[in-house]
């Protein structure tokens, strides 16, 4: 992924499949502060002219490529426009676990990020990447595909501003979480208070 100093990110992905597949689905997690442009795709070095079937499901978007003759190498590239000083650059992932490396516990995913804007002030927040020997470059090898790469850029290089997205259906997770925390807090406090008083009374 290459980040430029004007709020753009160019993402290039290269998948080497262990088996040939003809129907491939990729998916990505949209972010309120990042917008994905057109996706260019090649399968076994042939450019794919057809547009994938796009399906939205909440913040997830899936792209299904059908009718491609069994391809083993997929390349995808797209631009992302970000707003604000902290942005999550969406990563297109195959919609399922990648094959595990022989003798390993997970897949082999290499992530490489470069910053071409003015030096300094950029940090990769998540996942954890290690600085390379060349300046403004980071890398990591992961066991699985991350859904995003979160970066912080200097305010001078940020295009516009952006806040968290409060829309969408969270399925009641927030109130369930609150009830869960409250249950434990009340239980623990009541227990200690009751037994504390019992023993104080006995002594």
């Amino acid at each position, binding site marked *: 992924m290459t980040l430029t100093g004007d709020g753009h990110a160019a993402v290039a992905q290269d998948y080497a499949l262990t088996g040939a597949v003809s129907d491939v689905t990729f998916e990505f997690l949209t972010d309120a502060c990042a917008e994905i442009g057109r996706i260019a795709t090649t399968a076994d070095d042939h450019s794919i002219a057809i547009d994938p079937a796009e399906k939205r499901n909440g913040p997830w978007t899936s792209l299904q490529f059908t009718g491609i003759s069994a391809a083993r190498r997929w390349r995808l590239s797209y631009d992302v426009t970000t707003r604000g000083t902290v942005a999550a650059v969406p990563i297109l992932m195959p919609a399922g676990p990648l094959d595990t490396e022989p003798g390993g*516990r997970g897949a082999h995913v290499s992530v490489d990020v470069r910053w071409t804007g003015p030096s300094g002030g950029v940090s990769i927040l998540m996942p954890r990447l290690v600085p390379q020997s060349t300046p403004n470059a980071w890398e990591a090898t992961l066991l699985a595909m991350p*859904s*995003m790469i979160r970066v912080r850029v200097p305010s001078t290089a940020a295009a516009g501003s952006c806040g968290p*997205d409060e829309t969408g259906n969270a*399925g009641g997770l927030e109130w369930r979480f609150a009830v869960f925390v409250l249950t434990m807090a009340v239980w623990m406090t009541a227990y200690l208070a009751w037994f504390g008083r019992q023993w104080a009374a006995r*002594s």
Partner: protein
Amino acid sequence: MGGAQLIAFWTAVAAYMAVVVGIGAWNYRRTSKEEGFLVAGRSLGPIVGGATLMANQVSAGATIGIVGFHYYSGFSYAWSWPLTWAGWMVCAFFVAPKIRRHAGFTLPDYFAARYDSRAARGTAALFILVAYTVMLSAQYQAGGLLFTLVSGLEYWKAVILVAAITTAYTMLGGMYSNAYVGVLKAVLLLAGYLVAVPFLWRQLGGLHSIGVALHAIDPRLTANWFGWRQLLSISGAVGLGLAAAPYEISAIYSMQSQRATQLAIGWSFFFQAFIGIGVLVFGLSMRVAVPHLPDPDLGTPMLGTSVLPFGAGLLVLLAAVVTFTRTGGAILLTAAAAVSHDLYGGLLAPRASERARVRAGRVAVVLFSAIPVVLAFQHLSLVNFIVIYAARLMVSFLFVPVVFGLNWKRATAAGALASMLGGLVTCLVWSIVGNPYFLGVDSAEAGVLVSAALFFGVSLISRPVGAEAERVFFPPASSSQPG
């Protein structure tokens, strides 16, 4: 991880080991007698005791296994914490006061004293060894996975390394080490989770954003993946099992007083609440940040190695290392006590000196540590499934003769023996015949039902226990001592 980060990880593990060995060496002279080695000289106060109870319970099944459970099943499994606490309430009201007053060393000690029966002691010790072999294999498996991912060690070598670390500190320090390392475990877990949870929360846009992403993947992730029936059956096995768990009983024997014991249970709730929230946020966040892990049990290792910033990741990884070595240590210590104190000292060589029994205990730690290594090599299932299976076995043969035995005078040795045997066999057969709810009943529920039927039925038709055994656990009201 590689380079400097890997060096930092191994340095932290080495420092932890040095602290553990230091605690062990410092306590070595205090553990030359059984009271020191097995029950820490009955010196634990409420807070250290609470950390000890929590540290026994919160195993790799929680820090790695439950994170994996939340990763693939979402929020609902969080309710297992308060449901499990119901088991702790049973312990606080019906088990802990009488067990602490008895002042034994091991759970089979209780069986020997309550039922005036060497056979009950031996049977309990043998069955505990079986269930704890399974439980210990889960700790080794979790540790093996973590070390493999962090360092690139081959899995089998990583399992052996975990077993070696666990064995070393248990041999050196006994219950004193377990207690103090329990406190260290509590501090590390709290510190790691207090740093990591806000970080994940912030990076993923808060709980609302996490919920929106999860709900879109599968609405059950934010609601009820596990129904109440499943949660009650799992938590019943784990919670009620804890009320009679041998390592928790040993910890209760190690407390200063009944007061310390009951307050310690409250403090263990405090530690568990933090950990419950932490593992929940870890699992849910990882499902959004890395949605397609090849194995849910990789959630915590990947969180520590690749997602969190280095310092927070190191704390989370170290807390996991401490978790599986510490709980493994508690299991080993309990199993060693079953061999040295109950089978060797109680049955085979009753005249053996105390020093000889402690030596037998240390040898038993080494020998017993080896068997679960072989099971861990097989990678039987998800870590938390193995822990739940061991809990099911344990509750099926221990809950009734311990909890009802402490509170029903008429219980007899024959009833306890029939109950243990019937409960364990039923649970094993039920697990093999049908999963998960053969005839609408879970294997642990079936085990407990059969165990209870045999316990009451056989007790009523067999000879009551002697007056002395009765006096220890059912003293006249005037002789009950507070504190």
